[in-house]
Structure formats: C-alpha cells, structure tokens
C-alpha cells in the first residue's frame, strides 16, 4: 500500500519549530521517504505563530495539500489556528493545559484573525477557545485527540538529563512535540536518531544524545497511554524505499549552488525576505572549491573566492553588480519586490549598456511591503516591463529546487551570451520550502561566456557597441582587454559616446532589441515551455513557478478521478515560447490557467503573445501557496460546472 503522511508542526516563532521540522524532514528521508516541507511565518522575530507543513511518501513529492493527517502544536495558538486543517479522522497533538485558553486571550494572534475565528466557532455552536476548537474537530472532523502532558514529559526529561531547573529543559519542548508525531506514525527510533545527527552534526553529539532521551520518554508515553493512530507508516526501507541519493535543499540554497556552479564571483544584496538567505549562504561558502578534474586551475585558484557584498540599498546592489560585470566577473544580486522596485533604474542602465547582470527575484506578497513573508506570483508583469524605455531582457522562472539550480546557471550564461540583464523569477514558496533534489550533474552544465573580444593585443579602434547583424558586439572587459570602452546611460554611438543623432539612434536601438530576437531563435522553445503528462489530454493546465509542484502532484489524483490532464509549464516569459504555447493551447478542449495572483498575469502575457484568451482561471492571492488539493478542486469546478474563475483560499 502506498505510504504517505502529512503533518503540521506549529509553534511560536523562535520556539524551536524550525529545528524540529528540519529533524523531522531528515528523519523521514533517512527512513526511506521522499519529503517536502514548507515553512510559513510572520514578519516577526519572536512570538507570532509559525508552522512547518511536512509531507512524506514513498514516491516523489513536491507540494502540500490543503488538509493534513496530523496537527501538532507547541502552544495553544497553534491548535486554535490549525484545528480544522486535518483530514477526516486526523490527529491533533496538544498539551491538555491548552484547552482552557480562550481565543480572545491569545496575545500573539492578530485581532482580525481572532475575530474571524471566534465568529466561526460561535456560529457553529462552539466555545471560542481551544476546547471549542478541539470539540469541533472531534465532532465535525472525527479528530483523534492526543492530549500529551508536555510539562510532565519535560519534568521526566529533567530527571533523566540530571538538570535541576525546568527552564533549561524547556528548550526540548520542540523535541517533545516532534517525538509525539514520530511515535504516532511509527517512525523508527533509529531514523529519528539519524535525523538528529544530520541536523546537529558530528559537532554536537551531546545534543543528539539528549534529544534521544527526550524522544524515548515521549515514545514510551504515547505507546502506553494512547490507542494507536490509524496511519502508522513506519519506515520505508523495503521495496518502495527511495534508492537514489538525494540532497535536501531549500530554494535559497538551490539557487546559490547553481550560481556557484555557474561561475558567479560577485554577489551583492541588501537584506530582504525571502532573498537574503541566498546571499548569506553564498557568503558562508565564499571560498571557492575546484572540481578535482581541474587540478591545474585548482593550483592557480588557491584561496580565490566569491565576493558577497551587503550594500546600503538595492540601487547600490544592482549597480555594484553591474560595475563588477563590466570587468568580466559573473555578477548577480538577489532581492524581492520592494528591492526590485528600487533596482529598476539600474536595470535600465544595464539594458542600454548591454551588461550581463543577473537579478534573482524572489516574489512575495505586494504591493509595497505587502505580505513580506508570504508567497505570491504577482510580479510577473512588473519583471517583464520594469524600467522606462525598451530594452531586451530575459525573464525566466523556476518551478522547483532542481530546476532552480540549472536555471541559475542558465541565467548567468544567457546574460553573457545576449549581453543583457536576466531576471530569474522565483517565489517565497521556493525559498522557504525544502525538497529532495538529485545532485546537479556536472555534464548537464556548461558555461557560455558569450562573444568576448578574442584579441589579446592592443586595439585602439575598438568600439564596444559595434554594429553587428545579430546585435551582439564583441565585449571587451575593463581591466582585462587592451581596448578602451565607454559606457553611458544616454543613447550612444558604437564607441559608447553620447549621441542624439536620429540615424545612430535608429541603428543602436534596433541592435539592442535584435538580441532578444536572437535569444528567441537560439534558445529552444522546448526549454522555455515544458509539457508534462499525456500530450493528447483534453484538459490543459497552464502555470509557472511553484504552481508546478502542486499541479504535477495533483495529476495522479486527477487521473484516478477520470480527468486526463496535461500541464504546460511556462519557464521563460521573455523571449516568450509562443509557438509551443499556441500549439498546446489550441489543441486542448479545456485550458485552465492557475496562478498565485489576482489578475492572471501569465494568462495576460499569453494573450499578448499568442492572441489566445484563456477562459478558465484558478487564482489565489491570500499569500499562501497553491496546494495540490486546490488544483484538483479547480479542475473539477471547471470541468463539471464550467466555472470561469475559481478562487483559491486554502492555507493559514
């Protein structure tokens, strides 16, 4: 029988949920499962509700569903928030002392959230408290309740660990809750141990030991005090065990790894969620390591590294990266909506000056500061048109972590090949989710530095923007080649000197934009739009970015419900793969556009580029990623009811 489990681990921000979830994810992976986990949190450092949703099964998994098997909370607010996020018959793990907590008395819950919750419970005839929430879950959702006395567990732990004060063992609260979940699903102790070792590492053998002592107490208690949960999945070591070695990465790490492989040597940033972790990660790995195949280079490159620079703002960030790119360094910056808004003028400068600079753009909820820590796909149109005037840009998006690695390399390659800015669009949902990734294959990765001047000798007549049929002029690098270059944000002649001459303007303008036509010719459309599933299926879902995971995961259950669905993932929006998109959409009876925004931005781009108007859309703008369940629901609504717009609202 297929094995699958999905769990919400909730608690106050800073309360250890993050660590518990990392241990859980790795334990499940060590137990032989494929695992996916996403983190939801407030723009807050301590106290507000945060949670991890972790899903594991015996085949690849890339998304979450709307309802989970188990909700486990470190605090009362977690239970009040997620009591109705369980499937029928799901489990809730909590401390019995939570039940008396009134929703109105939860200090960190936002007033409007309280109001919505109180109203809801009251209208269903339940007390607005954890008690009422649990009763609701029991009566309406057949919830199995697991009141685990957290304090008693910690007291026992204190005894076993030989510590006097309860305050010290308090930090094991996350392990208590995690262990309860592990016990419920029958996760073998040895796998939990491996998970602990993975997270704490060889450096902290004591932490592993202590946490295991805590885990044993909880495992014992759960076993002797509760009836078994109906979904005991145990380990997954037999036939269905995952065989391939994989890496667990979050999106920030995936992109950083791609950038390092792609030869990035200069990264700038100004701190912003959810982009900053990428730069931190790069800085932590600033010392270059060279593949053993290249021992000669390794000798030369001893001690070389990547410069990661925290700038004073995003204008400085993009312009510094641009300056670095002029010298030949592969340069990039990473940001999110507010930061990209500030970068726009610099982007235009890079555009008119044909500078290969990469912006990794982590979308989050806007406008303005919007939802700083929540998911969104609402910046596609912005990325495509940011900046006054017209200039070529490549806009590519990644659907998951594995893609993101290769796309980060592509972004750096395309920037140099087409001598123009590349915007790599990803989302908060990629940044803050953990996925199992096949380690990048070196032979699938190549480096293309584009058209550089080949002549080492002095070239006094060099013209940086020399007219070429395909628009690409050989690039001389400042400080490397013996050829002088001038750059200006004004329109310029072939030498890079300011001009307002209409004839030169005509030619230079055209030359720049021709490069986008070249990219359109050279980059196969099959790399820019990818079709999954049965090519002859009647129903086509169109989506991009992290919608991919939810749709691919949904395809199986759609199949079993009798819907034959294919999925067209658009990866590159500029230059747009119009032929494939036109072809696939015109061959499908029903087309559904699924996006995490209000306007259906990709559908608008499709209309603009192909003239095809997509009638059915499933849209979401709550700041939470689209779930597998929502995709299934949306397809059913469209097919059965002919719904034109399906609004998605799941997730807390």
């Amino acid at each position, binding site marked *: 029988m297929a094995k699958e489990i999905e769990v919400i681990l909730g608690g106050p921000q800073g309360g250890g949920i993050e660590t518990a979830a990392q241990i859980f994810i790795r334990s499940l992976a060590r137990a032989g499962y494929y695992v996916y986990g996403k983190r939801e949190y407030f723009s807050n450092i301590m106290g507000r509700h945060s949670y991890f949703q972790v899903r594991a099964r015996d085949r690849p998994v890339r998304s979450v569903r709307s309802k989970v098997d188990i909700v486990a909370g470190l605090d009362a607010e977690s239970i009040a928030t997620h009591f109705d996020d369980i499937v029928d018959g799901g489990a809730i793990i909590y401390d019995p002392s939570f039940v008396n907590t009134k929703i109105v008395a939860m200090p960190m819950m936002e007033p409007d959230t309280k109001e919505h919750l109180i109203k809801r419970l009251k209208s269903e005839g339940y007390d607005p408290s954890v008690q009422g929430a649990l009763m609701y879950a029991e009566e309406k959702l057949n919830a199995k309740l697991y009141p685990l006395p957290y304090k008693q567990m910690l007291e026992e732990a204190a005894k076993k660990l030989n510590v006097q004060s309860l305050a010290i063992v308090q930090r094991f609260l996350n392990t208590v809750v995690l262990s309860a979940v592990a016990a419920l699903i029958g996760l073998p102790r040895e796998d939990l141990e491996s998970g602990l070792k993975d997270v704490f590492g060889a450096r902290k053998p004591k932490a592993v030991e202590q946490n295991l002592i805590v885990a044993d107490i909880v495992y014992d208690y759960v076993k002797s005090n509760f009836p078994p949960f109906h979904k005991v999945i145990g380990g997954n070591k037999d036939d269905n065990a995952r065989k391939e070695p994989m890496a667990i990465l979050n999106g920030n790490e995936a992109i950083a790894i791609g950038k390092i492989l792609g030869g990035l040597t200069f990264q700038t940033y100004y701190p912003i969620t959810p982009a900053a972790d990428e730069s931190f990660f790069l800085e932590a790995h600033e010392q270059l390591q060279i593949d053993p195949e290249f021992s000669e280079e390794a000798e030369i*490159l001893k001690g070389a590294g990547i410069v990661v620079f925290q700038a004073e703002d995003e204008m*400085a960030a993009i312009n510094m990266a641009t*300056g670095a790119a*002029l010298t030949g360094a592969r340069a990039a910056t990473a940001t999110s909506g507010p930061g990209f808004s500030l970068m726009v003028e610099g982007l235009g400068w890079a555009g008119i000056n044909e500078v290969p600079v990469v912006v990794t753009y982590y979308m989050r909820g806007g406008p303005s500061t919007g939802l700083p820590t929540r998911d969104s796909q609402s910046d596609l149109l912005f990325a495509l048109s940011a900046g006054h005037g017209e200039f070529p840009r490549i806009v590519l998006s990644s659907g998951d972590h594995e893609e993101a690695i290769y796309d980060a390399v592509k972004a750096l390659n395309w920037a140099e090949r087409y001598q123009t800015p590349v915007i790599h669009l990803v989302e908060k949902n990629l940044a803050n989710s953990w996925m199992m990734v096949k380690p990048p294959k070196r032979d699938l990765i190549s480096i*293309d530095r584009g058209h550089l001047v080949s002549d080492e000798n002095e070239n006094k007549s060099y013209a940086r923007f020399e007219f070429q049929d395909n628009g690409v002029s050989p690039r001389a690098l*400042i*400080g490397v080649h013996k050829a002088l270059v001038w750059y200006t944000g004004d329109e310029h002649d072939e030498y890079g000197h300011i001009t307002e001459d209409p004839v030169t303007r005509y030619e230079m303008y055209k030359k720049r934009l021709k490069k986008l036509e070249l990219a359109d010719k050279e980059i196969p459309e099959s790399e820019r739009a990818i079709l999954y599933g049965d090519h002859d299926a009647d129903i086509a879902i169109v989506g991009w970015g992290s919608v991919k995971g939810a749709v691919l995961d949904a395809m199986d259950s759609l199949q079993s419900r009798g819907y034959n669905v294919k999925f067209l993932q658009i990866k590159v929006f500029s230059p747009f793969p119009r032929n494939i998109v036109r072809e696939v959409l015109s061959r499908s009876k029903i087309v559904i556009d699924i996006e995490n925004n209000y306007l259906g931005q990709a559908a608008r781009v499709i209309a603009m580029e192909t003239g095809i108007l997509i009638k059915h859309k499933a849209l979401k703008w709550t700041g939470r990623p689209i779930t597998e369940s929502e995709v299934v629901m949306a397809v059913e609504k469209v097919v059965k009811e002919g719904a034109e717009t399906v609004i998605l609202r799941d997730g807390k």
Partner: protein
Amino acid sequence: MALMQTYKSNLNPDWCPGCGDYGILNAALMAFAELKLDPYKTVVVGGIGCSGKIPHYFNVHGVHTLHGRAVTFASGLKLANPELTVVVFGGDGDQLGIGVGHFVSVGRRNIDITIIIHNNQVYGLTKGQASPTLPRGIKTKALPMPNMQDPINPVRLALASGYTFVARGYAYNVQHLKEVIKKAIQHKGLSVVEVLQPCPTYNDVYTKEVYAQKVAYLEKEFPDWDPVVKSPEEASDKIKRAWDLSDLYGDKIYAGVFYQNPHVPTYEERIANRIPGYLKIPPAKVPIQVNGKPIASVEHILKPRMV
C-alpha cells in the same frame, strides 16, 4: 602638456564657456599624465549632470552612470578588479543630494577609489535649481525665490563619514587642483576632493570673483600644516582641526588637503583577510570554466545535505 593630450579623448566638452568643469578636467588630465596611469587599468566614472559627462572626455575607460549612483558602479568595478584605478566625478546634486546615501555609506568601507565633487551649488544640467550645498536665503540667478534649505558642507560630511583622505580644490587653480587630485589618487583608501566650481551660467552669487578673494591655501596659511595622521590616536584631533578650518561661508575658504589617515585598512584588504587569494585572483579574473565546463565544485556543500 603633450602627455596630457594622450589622456584626452577626441570629443569636445559641451560645457558653457567659462564653466569651472574645464578646469577640473584639465587638472585631472594633468594628474593622470603625471601619475602615468595605465589607460587600460583606469576608469573614470561619472554621475549625471553637466559634470557627469566627464568620462567621455578622457582617453581611459569611461562609465557615465546614473544620477547619484556613480559611487556604486565605481565600488563594483574596483572590488571586482582591485588592480583598477577608479576615479569618480559628479555634481554636488548628484553626490550630496540624490546620491548622498551612497556618499556616506562608501565612507564606511575605505574602498581605494577617488571621488571628485563638482561643487557649483546649483543643479546645472536641469537649469539652475538649488543644490544641497547652496546656503539658505540665497537666490541664485534661476531661482524664482530664495533657497529655504540649509547647506551640506562636503568636507565635513566626508570627515564624519569615514573618508580617509579629504581635500578641497578650486577649479580655477588648476595647478593646485592637479596636485590635490594626484595625492588623492595616490592615497591608499577612499579619497574625496571637493572642488569649488564656478557655474557662470546659473550661479551669480559664488562667482570666480568671489572665490578669487576668498580662496586661501592651507599649506600657505599654516606653514606647519600637516594633514597626515601619524598614529591612529591622532585621528580625532586632525579631524577636529580639519572640521574647524573647512567652513565655506566665512571670509576665507581654505583649499588643500584637510585630512589623510593611512591607518585604516582598505576594503580590499579586509576582503583579502578572509579570501586570501582575492588580490591575486579577484572576481574579474577567476577562470570559471575550461572548454565550457564549470570548474567550481559544490560537493562540500551538498555532502552534509545528502540523504
């Protein structure tokens, strides 16, 4: 003079007759020539304004950037390839108005670049609005009403921001300005030269006649003048003295080198402390591929993440 010509591009500046920018350009050309800068390793970075166009008039690499942002491009160029000599030219509006955040921030880093401020107290290229260095109550030619904002003193802002070389020159004393620019470029660390730059077209208040009367030279007025910090403890006294003498609105306006502190590590040295190969193989020079194959390895990153 002949040598200077080799640093001059074949373009003619389009500044108004009598503009102080000509003096600044000539002083810089002479300084470059006397320092024998390698044109292929020298970058002039300009902001936006009348002054900002200056990169096009040099026969070295020229990068004419965005309004206020010249310093950011320059920082990227220098840190990606520390072999380069990078000199930034920009207006007072450019560097102390729209770009003042960068002007201050770069002071924390002591990147080894030189910044020249063309202080004409107006926004030249947008037709004479008040710049951040124009005093309150002053009405220059184009202003419809007197200026209502107080002025920034560029020297003092630089001193407060951590610049390790702070000087002032006068656009019409080209010889003196040349010497100051030379010292600024030779200084290892972040240097700034504020240049009093008459704008005959829009600034009818701070004219060359006024400056002719007021500009005085530190080294002449104070025979024992020594702006160089000999030991780190001396820095604050030297900053105070520089501060006191850098007023712009008294009877005298002093020009010369106000302050020079060689004891602060450059940003490049700070990077090299962490990345030992940085100065030898900076980001611009890392051979990232062999026959199209990437040479970087990520095995050490993946290993602890493998399951």
